[in-house]
C-alpha cells in the first residue's frame, strides 16, 4: 500500500524537481541548438514512458495487493501474444523516433563545413596551449619529437607552413563570432578532452593522433574550457578560457600574439643589462640572490628564468601582490615595475640564473620527513618533480633549495586565497587546489621538511 503511494509521489516529485531545478544546461553559445532540441525531445518521450510505466506499476501494486482477511487469487495468464507484439511495435517506434533525429544531428556533427577555419588546441598535463594558422591559412606540421622548452607546441621547425602559425602559450584563446571553426585536437602526453559546456560539443585529445570537431560561436563572452577526460592528478585544475569576439576584435587579438617564427628568433638575453637592473633587487634579495628573511625577501638563485619572468609580469600587471591582505606581495609590486618590459624581465631573469645563492641557508621548519615524502610524492612530484627541481613542461618552479619560510608563507597565501585567486593567475589557481593536500599546519610542515631534505 505505502509503496504504491510512494511510487506516485516519486513520479510527481521527479517531474516537479525537473521543472524546478535551477541546474540545467548553460545558455548555449554555439550553433548546436540542435543538440538541445534532441535532448528535449528525448526528455518528452522518456518522461512520458517514465510516468506511464511507474503509474501503471503503482496502480497494479495498489489494486492487486493481498489484503488482510480477504481471499484473493491471481489470474493465470502465461502470455498474451497480441499485447506483447503491440508493446514491441510501440517501443520500436518510440526508439526509432528518438534515434532518427539523433543520427540526423550527428550527421551534421561529423560533416565539417568547407568554409570552417582551423585552429588547434594542444593539451598537456595539465595545461592548454593553442595555435592558429598564419597568413597562409595552414597550420604547420607538428610532432612530439620537436618539443623543446622554446618550442612547446612541437611545431616542425623545417616546415615553412608552420613559421607564420600564431602561437599561444597560455590557457586563454579567442574565436570570432559567427564563423565556423574546425577544432583540431592534439595531446602531448595522455588522453585529455576539450570541453566548453556552453558549446555543447566536446572531443577527446589523443596522443599520437589529431582528433577534431567543429562549431560556430553564436554569442560573445568568455567561457570556461575544461578537461573532461581523466588525465591524472591535475585533471580538475586543467582549466582554460575561450573568449568569443567580434571578428574585427578577433583579428586585433590575433595580431597581438606572436608567430612561431618570432618565438624562435628571440635574441639572447643581455645578462649585463640584467645585472644592471638587479642592483635594485640586490638590496633585499642579496648580491648572490640568497634572500633575506628579515626583509621577507626570498632566495631567487635556483629559480628558473621563465618563472621569474612570469612572476615579475604578474606583479606588474596586478595579477600577483595586488590583494590588500598580501602585505609582502604589495611591497614587491612597485619593485617589479622597474623591469616592466618583456626584454627587461628576460635580462634580469637571465642574470639571476647565474647567481649561486647561499648553500648554507638555515632551515626553519621541521616536521616528519617520511609523512611529508608520502604527501609530496603523491601530490606535488607530478609537476615539481621527484627531485623538487620543477619543470618548464609543467610550468612548475623549483622548490628544492628555496627558503622554507618562504614556501610556508606562499602555501598559506594559496590556502587563504591571497595568492592564486586572480582570474589571470592560471598557474597560481592550480596551487590553490593542490595546497589542499596539506590542509593542516602539521602536514604542511612535514612536506616542507621533506623539501628541505631534497637540497
Amino acid at each position, binding site marked *: 500500500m505505502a509503496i504504491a503511494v510512494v511510487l506516485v509521489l516519486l513520479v510527481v516529485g521527479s517531474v516537479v*524537481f525537473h521543472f524546478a*531545478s*535551477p*541546474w540545467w*544546461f*548553460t545558455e548555449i553559445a554555439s550553433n548546436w541548438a540542435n543538440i538541445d532540441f*534532441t535532448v528535449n525531445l528525448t526528455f518528452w518521450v*522518456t518522461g512520458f514512458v*517514465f510516468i506511464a*510505466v511507474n503509474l501503471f*506499476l503503482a496502480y*497494479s501494486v495498489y489494486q*492487486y495487493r*493481498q489484503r488482510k482477511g480477504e481471499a*484473493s*487469487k*491471481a489470474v*493465470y*495468464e*502465461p*502470455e498474451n501474444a497480441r499485447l506483447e507484439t503491440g508493446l514491441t511495435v510501440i*517501443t520500436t517506434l518510440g*526508439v526509432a523516433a528518438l534515434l532518427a533525429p*539523433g543520427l540526423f*544531428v550527428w550527421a551534421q*556533427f*561529423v560533416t565539417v563545413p568547407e568554409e570552417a577555419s582551423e585552429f588547434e588546441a594542444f593539451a598537456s598535463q595539465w595545461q592548454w596551449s593553442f595555435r592558429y594558422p598564419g597568413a597562409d591559412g595552414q597550420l604547420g606540421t607538428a610532432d612530439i619529437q620537436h*618539443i623543446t622548452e622554446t618550442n612547446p607546441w612541437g611545431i616542425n621547425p623545417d616546415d615553412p607552413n608552420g613559421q607564420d602559425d600564431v602561437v599561444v602559450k597560455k590557457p586563454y584563446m579567442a574565436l570570432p563570432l559567427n564563423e565556423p571553426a574546425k577544432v583540431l585536437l592534439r*595531446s602531448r602526453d*595522455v*588522453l585529455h*578532452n576539450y*570541453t566548453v*559546456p*556552453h558549446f555543447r560539443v*566536446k*572531443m*577527446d585529445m*589523443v*596522443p*599520437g593522433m589529431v582528433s577534431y570537431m567543429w562549431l560556430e560561436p553564436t554569442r560573445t563572452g*568568455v567561457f*570556461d574550457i575544461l578537461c*573532461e577526460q*581523466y*588525465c*591524472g*592528478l*591535475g*585533471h*580538475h585544475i586543467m*582549466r582554460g578560457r575561450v573568449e568569443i569576439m567580434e571578428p574585427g576584435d578577433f583579428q586585433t587579438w590575433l595580431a597581438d600574439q606572436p608567430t612561431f617564427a618570432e618565438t624562435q628568433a628571440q635574441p639572447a638575453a643581455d645578462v649585463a643589462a640584467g645585472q644592471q637592473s638587479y642592483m635594485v633587487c640586490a638590496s633585499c634579495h642579496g648580491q648572490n640572490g640568497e634572500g633575506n628573511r628579515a626583509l621577507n625577501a626570498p632566495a631567487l638563485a635556483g629559480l628558473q628564468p621563465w618563472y621569474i619572468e612570469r612572476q615579475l609580469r604578474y606583479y606588474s600587471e596586478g595579477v600577483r601582490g595586488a590583494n590588500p591582505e598580501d602585505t609582502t606581495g604589495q611591497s614587491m609590486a612597485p619593485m617589479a615595475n622597474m623591469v616592466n618590459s618583456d626584454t627587461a624581465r628576460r635580462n634580469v631573469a637571465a642574470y639571476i640564473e647565474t647567481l649561486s645563492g647561499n648553500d648554507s641557508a638555515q632551515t626553519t621548519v621541521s616536521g616528519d620527513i617520511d609523512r611529508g615524502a608520502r604527501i609530496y610524492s*603523491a601530490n606535488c612530484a*607530478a609537476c615539481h618533480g621527484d627531485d623538487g627541481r620543477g*619543470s618548464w*613542461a609543467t610550468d612548475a618552479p623549483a622548490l628544492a633549495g628555496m627558503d622554507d619560510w618562504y614556501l610556508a608563507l606562499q602555501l598559506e597565501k594559496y590556502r587563504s586565497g591571497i595568492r592564486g585567486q586572480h582570474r589571470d593567475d592560471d598557474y597560481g*589557481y592550480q596551487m*590553490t*587546489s593542490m595546497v589542499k593536500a596539506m*590542509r593542516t599546519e602539521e602536514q604542511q610542515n612535514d612536506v616542507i621538511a621533506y623539501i628541505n631534505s631534497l637540497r
Partner: protein
Amino acid sequence: MAYVPLADQDDPHALHDPHSFITKYVWSQDHKVIAIQYGGTAIFVGLIALGLSILMRLQLGFPDSISWIDPAFYYQAVTMHGMIMVVYLLTALFLGGFGNYLIPLMCGTRDMVFPFLNMLSFWFYLLSVIILLASFFVTGGPAGAGWTLYAPQSITAGTPGSGGGMLLMLISLAVFIVAFTMGGLNYVTTILQARTRGMTLMRMPLSIWGIFTATVLGLFAFPALLVSAIMLGFDLVLGTSFFMPAMMQLGEQSTQDGGSPILFQHLFWFFGHPEVYIVALPAFGLVSDVIATHARKNIFGYRMMVWAIIAIGGLSFLVWAHHMYVSGMNPYFGFFFATTTLIIAVPTALKVYNWVLTLWQGNIRLNTPMLFAIGFIFTFVHGGLTGLFLGNVIIDVPLADTYFVVAHFHMVMGVSPVLVLYAALYHWYPKMTGRMYNETMGKVHFWCTFLGTYAIYLPMHYLGFLGVPRRYYEMGNTDFVPATAQALNANITIAAIFVATAQVLFFINIFMSLRKEKDAGGNPWGATTLEWQTPDTPPKHGNWGPELPTVYRWAYDYSVPGAKQDFIPQNEPGEEYEKTFHTRGHS
C-alpha cells in the same frame, strides 16, 4: 560400469559426506558453502568500496572535513570504488554467490559438475581480492587511474598509484579472470549437462537463464580484459608499446612509441559493455523469480523473457563503442553504435513491461523481497531511460564525462542490481539458513535504501546537464557553476551517508535472525521452483537425499485454476495445466 557424473548420481552418500570442520566449511566442495564463501567475501570487499564512496562524497559535499583526503587519494578512491563494485562485488556476488547457490538447486543436481574446480574458483577469487587490497599498502598507494584504466595515463607518473598499485590491480584482475573462468565453465556445463529429468531448457526458472547467459557473456568478454591487462602490464613493466604512443612527461621524451590508446579503449569496452549485462542479466533473472513468487502469478511472457535475455546478451557485444563516442575514434562509428545501442532498449523495455504485467492481476504479497523488487523496477526504468540519452550518440556529446553519466550508471547498474541483491538475499535467506528474517527490520532497510539512493542520484543527473565533469577532486573556480551546486552536493553527501548507515540494518537482521527468528520451514513462500522442495532446509550436501527430483512442469505454475493451492511445485507429477500455452508445450 558406465561413468555417472556426481551431479547425476542418485545416491551420493559415499562421496558426499565431509566430516571435519575444515572439509565442511573451509576446503569445501559443496556449492552452497562455496556460494556463501563467495558471497561473504564479495560483501566484505563491497563494504570497503562503500566506505571509499563515502570518503569521496565527503570531499565533494564537505571539502576540508577530512584533512587526509588529498587529490591523489581522491582519485585512488574513485578508482578502487568503481573497480571493486563492478568486478569484485557485483560480478562475484551474482555469479559466484547466487550462481553457485542456485544452479544445482534450481536445476535439480547434487552439485556442480566439477566441484573441485568450483572450490578452486573461490580460492583464486579470494587471492585476487587479497592482491587488490594489498595495493593499498604499497608505495604510492593503489591505482588512481579511474576504473577504466585508460592508457597511457594509467601507467604514467602523472597518475597516483601508477606504479606498484597499478601492477597489483592488473595482476589481481588476471587472477580474478582465472577464477571466473573456472567457475563460469562449471556453471555453463552444469546447466547444459546436469539438469535433472524433465528439466527442459524452457522449464528453467529465469534466474538460471539470467545466470547462464551472463556466464556465457563473461566467458567471451573477460578474455578481452585479460589480454588488455597483460598487454598494459607489459607496457608498464617491460616498456612495450601496445598502448603507448610517443609522448612527453616532465619535459622528457618517452622511450615508447607507436602504440594506440584507442585500442585499449576498444579492448576494455569489449569487456566493459558485456560486463554491464553480466551484472544485469542475473539481476533480471533473480528479480523475475522474486516477483512471480510473491505476486503468486506466473511470470508474464516467459518465452519472451527468455529470448529477451538471449537477445540482450547477444547485442551486448555489438554496442561497446557507445562508451567512446567522443574518444576520437572515427566519428562515423557513431551511426552504427547508436543504432545497435538503441535497439538493445527494445528487449530491455519488454522485460520491464513483463515484470509490471506480472504484477497486474496478481495477488501481491508486499513483503521485503517484493518491496525491493518493486523498487528495482522503478530505479531500472529510470536508469534505462537515461540510457536512451547517452546511447543516442549526439546527446552523449554534451553529457559524456559529466555527472549525468555517473548518475545514469549508478542508477542502472549500481542501485538497481543492489536492490535485486537485497530482494534475492531476503528471498532465499530462509532456504540458506532455515530461519525467517525479521520482516519489520527488512522493510525499514528497504525504505531507507530505496528513498535514500533516489535522493542521491536523481539530482545528480542535473549537475550533469549543467556540465559538471566527473572525476573532479573539486569544482574550483568556474563561471558556469552556480553556488547552489555546492549545496546540492552537500545534500547528496548527506543522503549517501544515510544510505550507507542504513545498511547496518541488513547485517543486524541476518545475524540476529539466525538465533532469534522462527524456523522458516522448507518452503515458506509457497514457491514452485526446485530449491524450495529439498528434503532438508538448509539443504544438506548432495541436496536431494537418496533420489533426484523429477520435473513435470515449468517454473511458474502459480494460481493455476482448479488447483488445490495457489502453487504447484515443478516436481509435482500430473498433467500440466491444460489450455495449450506454448510455454508448456516444450516438454
